[in-house]
Every structure is written in structure tokens, then in C-alpha cells.
């Protein structure tokens, strides 16, 4: 793996959009292939073993979640960054829980996207302000009712620092700005975000699932 020029696979069913992303990524990354459906994405991942897969959440034959689930165990080193126009929280949370290491909206600017790809390639998590908002919302509904038997404070709760970091992301801060604001190193910010991602993927709090569906109704 070459961390400064990650090998990227584009998966999106819109040819126009893939062309746009390819143009914006420019020379900063090496685009090793494009796929427009789940089957060809799975095949290309097997052949190219890219560092990062830029993955559309919605595709006619199953979308990002299906791709991740198909290749997660044979190729554990391939990392996924979800890219979507959808704001529906259940879609976002579903693809993150399937194993994506980040989520950005399709309106993201070119340099920001390159930055996000690099970050995912080096094993960090990428949270857009909106995803940070979703996560805060999901974990904010603290168990004021009877605590469940399965409640695990290690997984089902955000630490104070993680909470602060997420709030700053939601306010539009970059990792560097967060580090300055909280007087910690950028690496520490990254490890906090990764830890939130881990909680998001592993927590069995059923509030998390319920929240995602309920939020639509608000």
C-alpha cells in the first residue's frame, strides 16, 4: 500500500457521477477501476484489492451494504468510504454498521474528498458533520427508561471527550481545528473518532436501530 497515493475503486451506478469523482480526485489517488453494480464491484475488489472503495449507498441491486457484506471476510484489508446523496439516517447507519469506515455526502468538495480517501486508506474514520449529528442523536437518547440487561457502558455510551469531538465535527471543524480547540494532538482526535466508529459498529443497543427508523418521523 502506498499511503500517499492510495489505490481506489469507484462503485456507483451513475456513469456521470463516477466520471465527476474521477476528475475531482485527479492525480492524488490511483483509480484502479470502476464498477456500476454489486456483482462487478465484488469481482473487481477481488482482482485489484484496492486500498479504498468509494461506495455508493444506493444501487439498484442492493447497494453499498451488499458489497461490503460480500467482501468483508475474504478481503479484510479493503476499506470502504460511503458516498451518498441520501440523508436518511437509517441508510447511513446501516452502511456504517456493515463496516464502512466513513460517510460523506456527494456534495463534498474535491480536496475534502481526497483528504477523506487518504484518511480512510490509513485506517482512520471519516465523519461528515451530518454523520456526527446522527451519532450524537443516536447516543443522546440515554436510557432514561429501565437500563437494559445488555447495556454495556464500554460500547453503548460515548465518553465525554468523544462527545466533545463529535460536537466539534458537527459544528464544521476539521480534525486539525479540533485538535487546537481541545489542546490535543490530531492523532488523538483521530483515535477518538475511530473509537466512536467502533462503538457505532459494535454496539448492540437496540435504541441505535430504533432511533434510525424513528428519526424519519420527527
Amino acid at each position: 500500500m502506498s499511503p500517499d497515493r492510495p489505490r481506489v475503486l469507484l462503485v456507483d451506478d451513475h456513469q456521470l457521477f463516477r466520471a465527476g469523482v474521477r476528475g475531482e480526485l485527479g492525480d492524488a489517488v490511483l483509480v484502479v477501476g470502476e464498477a456500476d453494480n454489486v456483482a462487478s464491484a465484488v469481482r473487481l475488489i477481488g482482482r485489484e484489492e484496492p486500498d479504498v472503495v468509494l461506495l455508493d449507498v444506493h444501487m439498484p441491486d442492493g447497494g453499498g451494504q451488499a458489497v461490503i457484506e460480500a467482501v468483508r471476510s475474504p478481503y479484510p484489508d479493503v476499506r470502504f468510504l460511503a458516498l451518498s446523496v441520501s440523508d436518511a439516517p437509517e441508510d447511513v447507519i446501516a452502511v456504517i454498521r456493515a463496516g464502512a469506515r466513513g460517510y460523506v455526502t456527494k456534495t463534498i468538495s474535491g480536496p475534502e474528498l481526497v483528504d477523506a480517501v487518504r484518511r480512510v486508506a490509513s485506517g482512520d474514520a471519516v465523519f461528515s458533520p451530518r454523520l456526527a449529528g446522527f451519532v450524537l442523536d443516536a447516543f443522546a437518547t440515554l436510557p432514561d427508561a429501565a437500563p437494559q440487561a445488555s447495556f454495556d457502558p464500554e460500547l453503548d455510551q460515548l465518553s465525554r471527550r468523544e462527545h466533545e469531538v463529535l460536537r466539534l465535527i458537527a459544528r464544521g471543524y476539521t480534525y486539525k481545528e479540533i485538535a487546537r480547540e481541545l489542546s490535543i494532538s490530531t492523532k488523538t482526535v483521530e483515535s477518538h473518532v475511530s473509537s466512536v466508529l467502533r462503538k457505532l459498529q459494535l454496539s448492540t443497543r437496540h435504541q441505535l436501530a430504533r432511533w434510525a427508523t424513528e428519526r424519519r418521523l420527527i
Partner: protein
Amino acid sequence: MVGGVASAVAERLRVDPGVVRVLLVISVPLSGIGVPLYMLAWLLIPLEGSERSIAGRATGDLRGIAILIALSPVLVVTLIASSALGNRYVTTLDTAVFLSAGGLFLIYRNADEDERAWLRNIADSYLHLTPSASRSRKALALRILAGVALLAAGMLILTLGHISGAALEPLAGVVLLLVALALLFGPWWLRLGRDLMTERQARVRAEERADMAARVHDSVLQTLALIQRKADDPQQVAQLARAQERELRSWLFEGGEPGSPGASDPTTVSSGAKQIAREVEDAHGVAVEVVTVGDCQLDDELRALLAAGREATVNAAKWSGAPTVSLFVEVEPSSVSMFVRDRGAGFDPAAVAPDRRGVAESIRGRMARHGGKATIRSSPGQGTEVELTMPRPVVRT
């Protein structure tokens, strides 16, 4: 009265429609032939202002006709049964009832949308076909009651009646006939039923598609046309695209009414924040990214918070020069906070002339008057962040 046939006939014959109606009503119990006649007229006389009569369309409705033919054995069986049992009255009425039911069926299938909706309404008011929460339960109870009563009556008649061989023989014949017919026509009936179901589904799908097409046409295509015309003005193109995106999103994900996203006054903090974003984007052509966490109803204090937040967002859009403004709102149990941030020019808060009423009055003053707090952090080249906090009244339980 139902199909407007009486008045049409009356108009043709130049007599009072009342006369025609009375004649029709009298004819019903006499031979029952009046009802099918009515249906026939309904089929044949075109609706005022429409070209083809329903019959014209019905002859093309092969499936409808097939269903009628498929059901005709029922008529034959009841005819045979009633004559075997010596029930004259049923024999006379049978054909009439069958023909009118068939006629009504064809009419319904081939009537235009207005007439069909109207027929549905009539049927609804008598049969309560449309399930509504409270009504359907009552209707169900009524149906069960009626069913049980009929069942009991039938058993009673069967057990009390004189069971003589002479009466049983034709009955057995009828049963055999029914079985034979079911064997002969059964598969065909099943297929027709299935066809009907798919036809119904196709109709629902077509309606959905029409709705979608209308939506896409009204907004998306219009906007695309506008964008093509304004292709040389990138800022306006971006603004148009963004406004359209917002509208489509509110329709797709939030079930918002198309055309007028959030035209009414917002009632919650999050909808208020979204409205601010919408209006500032439209007025200043700057993207406003809204992130909200939690939500609650608006009260006077929170309205003041939103008003101050709007002022801060407008300032950021107008003066910072940044292409995007972040708006973050968090509702917590004890307070609501709002952050407006841009990565633009920034300024030195200490150097702002005291006569700049914008910041002093509409943000700080407004927050202070309502018991809240405003903090502005900015320095040249570093962008600006306005933090607004409003405590929430303690909820008494």
C-alpha cells in the same frame, strides 16, 4: 339518480324526469326488468360532453366480458335450482339481478375516473368498504353478527322443515351441478381472479408513476430548463440546483408537501433551523449546512434564539466570503445551543465600532433579553463562530 339515466331519457322524450323515475321504480318489483334496462341505458347513453358511451368502451373490455361469462354458470344453477324448488319469484328476478349486477360491473370497469370515484363513494357510504380505524371494527362486528344470525336461521329451517325425499332430490341435483361446474370452470375462475389482481396492481403502479412524473415535471424539469438558460451564471446555477435539491429531499425523505417546502411557520427548533438555512441560501447564494441533534417545540425564548441565529447566519453569508456556513443546533435537556460557523475572512471583535448595531443589538442584546448568552469568536483570517445558548425551563413532572 345514480347514473343520471332518468334525466337523460326524460330529456330525449321531453317529459319530466320524475315521471321516468316513478315508472322505473314501479317496474322493479313487478318483473325486475327495470333495473337491467337502467343499466343498459347507462351503458349506451354517452355522458354529456363525452364522445363514446360506456358500452363503446365495454365491448373492448375483453377481460370484463370474460369474467361475466365465467360467472354465468351461477345464473344457470340458481335458475335450475329455483325452478326445481318451484320458487317462481326467484326465477323471475334471477335473470334481472344477474344482468344488472353484470351491467354495473361493466360500467364500473369502463367508466371514466370521475364517475368511478363517484360510484366508489356511493358504495362506500352503504357498504363501508373503506376501512377506517373506528368504523372497520364496528363493521366487522356487524358482519359477524349478521353472519351468525343467518347461519342460525338456516339451521333452524333445515332442522324444522319436513325433510322429505321429494325435496332432497332436486337439492342433491343442485349440489352435483355445482360441483360439476366448479370442476369445469374452476381453473378458469382462478386465473381470472389472478388476472384481476394483477390488473389492479398495474393500475396502482400506473397512478404512482403518473404522480412521480407530474412531480418531476413540475419541479425538476423546470429547474433544469432554468439552469440551461442561466448556464453563464454559475452562482445562480448553484442556487437553483440547491433549492431544487432541498425541495426534492423534503418530498422524498420527510414527506413534505411539494412546491412549498416549509411555507408555514416552523413549530420546532430543527424545522426552524432548516428554514433559516433555506432562506439564507436563497437570499445570498451561500450553502448552509445544517446539523441538528435532538428537537423540541418552540417557545418565545427559542424563537429569540432562532432569530439571533438567523442574524448570525446572514452576517456570515454576507460578510465572510466563505462558500459555506455551518449551522449546528443541539437540544439538550437543560439548554439549546446553536453554533454558526464560517471559514471566511473573520474580524477582530475588539475593533468593531460600537455603532455596528447588527451584532450588538440583534444578537447579543436579543439573547440577553431572553436570558440567553451569545459568544462571538473571530480573528482575521480564521473565520468566525457565533455560539448562542438558551437555557430551557425546567420541565415539571
